[in-house]
């Protein structure tokens, strides 16, 4: 383990302005986790969250079409959209953690974060509702959940999909 990840006391012994290139490389890798990065990388999570949110908003469209036509295939579209949306939401969550670790995100905007978390939770519940058979998979609980999630996500989306402020540049 020590060979790949020098412990803190190793770092302490490494002078900051070392001229040895190998020492410098190790120092940089660690530094990127411990201090604000020198390059202001773009955060990863907004792209995944945005993609997932689009699928979850679309559930409202397929649900309304199902309720109007009673053609079962629209209900199947809804549950696949929910599955895709939730998968991307989960990946978005992982990306957010990576963004925080790599200091691409310095501070979480908690209001927006909470809004997205609520949308994800309601969509998970909605996936269970949509796993019922036939009409009650959509009407009434499914479509109410889809409409709530769509409203929430459109409002958050207009505000932007990033849930964190980037580190202030020097």
């Amino acid at each position, binding site marked *: 383990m020590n060979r790949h990840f020098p412990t803190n006391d190793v770092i302490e012994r490494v002078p900051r302005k070392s001229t040895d290139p190998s020492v410098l490389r190790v120092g940089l890798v660690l530094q990127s986790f411990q201090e604000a990065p020198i390059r202001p990388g773009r955060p990863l999570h907004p792209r995944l969250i945005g993609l997932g949110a689009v699928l979850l908003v679309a559930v409202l469209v397929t649900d309304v079409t199902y309720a109007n036509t009673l053609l079962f295939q629209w209900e199947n579209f809804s549950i696949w959209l929910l599955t895709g949306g939730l998968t991307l939401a989960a990946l978005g969550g992982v990306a957010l953690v990576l963004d925080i670790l790599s200091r691409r995100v310095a501070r979480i905007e908690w209001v927006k974060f909470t809004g997205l978390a609520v949308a994800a939770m309601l969509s998970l519940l909605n996936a269970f*509702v949509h796993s019922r058979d036939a*009409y*009650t998979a959509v009407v009434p609980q499914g479509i109410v959940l889809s409409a709530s999630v769509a409203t929430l996500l459109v409002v958050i989306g207009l505000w932007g999909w990033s849930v964190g402020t980037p580190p202030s540049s020097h």
Partner: protein
Amino acid sequence: MKSVSLLVGCALVSVMSGAAFGQGVAPPSTQYGAKPYLPEPRQYFVPPMQVPPGVGWKQGQTPIVPAGLKIQAYATGFEHPRMVYTLPNGDVLVVETNGPNAPIYRPKDYVEAKVKALAGSSAPGGNRITLLRDVNGDGVPDVRTTFIDHLNSPFGVVLVGNDLYVANTDALLRFPYVAGETHISSPGTKLTDLPAGPIDHHWTKSLAASPDGSKLYVGVGSNSNITENGIAVEEGRAAIWEVDRRSGLKRIYAAGLRNPTGVAFEPQTGKLWAIVNERDEIGPNLVPDYLTSVREGGFYGWPYSYFGQHLDVRVQPQRPDLVAKAIPPDYALSSHVAPLGMAFSQASNLPTRYRSGALVAEHGSWDRSPLNGYKVVYVPFRAGRPSGPPEDVVTGFLTQDERRSQGRPVGLAFDRTGALLIADDVGNAVWRVSADQIGGQPRPAS
């Protein structure tokens, strides 16, 4: 590991559905007979479920029978045996079969396939009929041959004269049969097509011949639990078909029967009866599976309603015209027992108390917690009608803690001595239940 994660998933599921607390589940005894207790339907986030993994029998283990009966393994080592049928010369046919692979239409189908595999219901079927012959009459077959091979998910079998009919999932086939032969190499001729793929949700085609042998009756199950695959794919399904044996012409004899897995003629009245598997996911006590006489032209409710006019709100648009004429079935067996085999016992050589009714094999299911079924019951009849609550005849298919299933009973038949044969598709065995000459009342051979 796979099964551990699935068990964890099931535990989570039971918490979400409230089933883990065993709340207010009335015992099965409240749901026997003509007027079962029917609670209000519920819609779940996750319906109550309990999946006992199918593990098979240990060496020497058998199901359990009450005093007066004895049970032994008739034969073992099958590939998912589901139906047994005795030919006039005493040869026993064992139909080894399972359904075609179901397509994945929704994420739920994937989860259901996993649950099914855990419960031991996904083992590949042999797609063949095996013949067993007990030459010396000791109740253990001495000859075992492949009788008909390369079938397509067969289920029902019936012999009329020299014509042997086999109900594949997609067609009714006729084979020429010569008494005493142990193998049929003829590919058979198709009498008529039966509703099958591409979904083929309930794939079994049960089969019986009218007492005069002129007509065949085929039970065809629905293509969904409750029309979640659309109403169009239900054309000709959830019905009992009547097929003219000579011409192959067919018509729907009765409809609205969700999954009629067994059809048979009651010997005293000569009327057609069926066992039917009802709908799932609206509660541990909904909807009771049943045994019923089948009226020509009758409609029994599926999908729009159950037990007469109890509406199922999951089906839209509704059909009030059909609901109005829905016939309540004769006899509820209680919920989620999954009856898959039936035999009227008049011709049997079981003790007298089991000789005037119907034996029903309850395969059991994972759609209820606590579990129900996983046994063979006897429904007494008087004057051609059920006359009392079902009695347990063969139990012990589940382990005592109900955590695993060792076997699950399906097809029933009587061998030439009048003993009961039971196909067991998880134990991959055929069991033989006979009167116990020592322990119980001795019976003269019929």
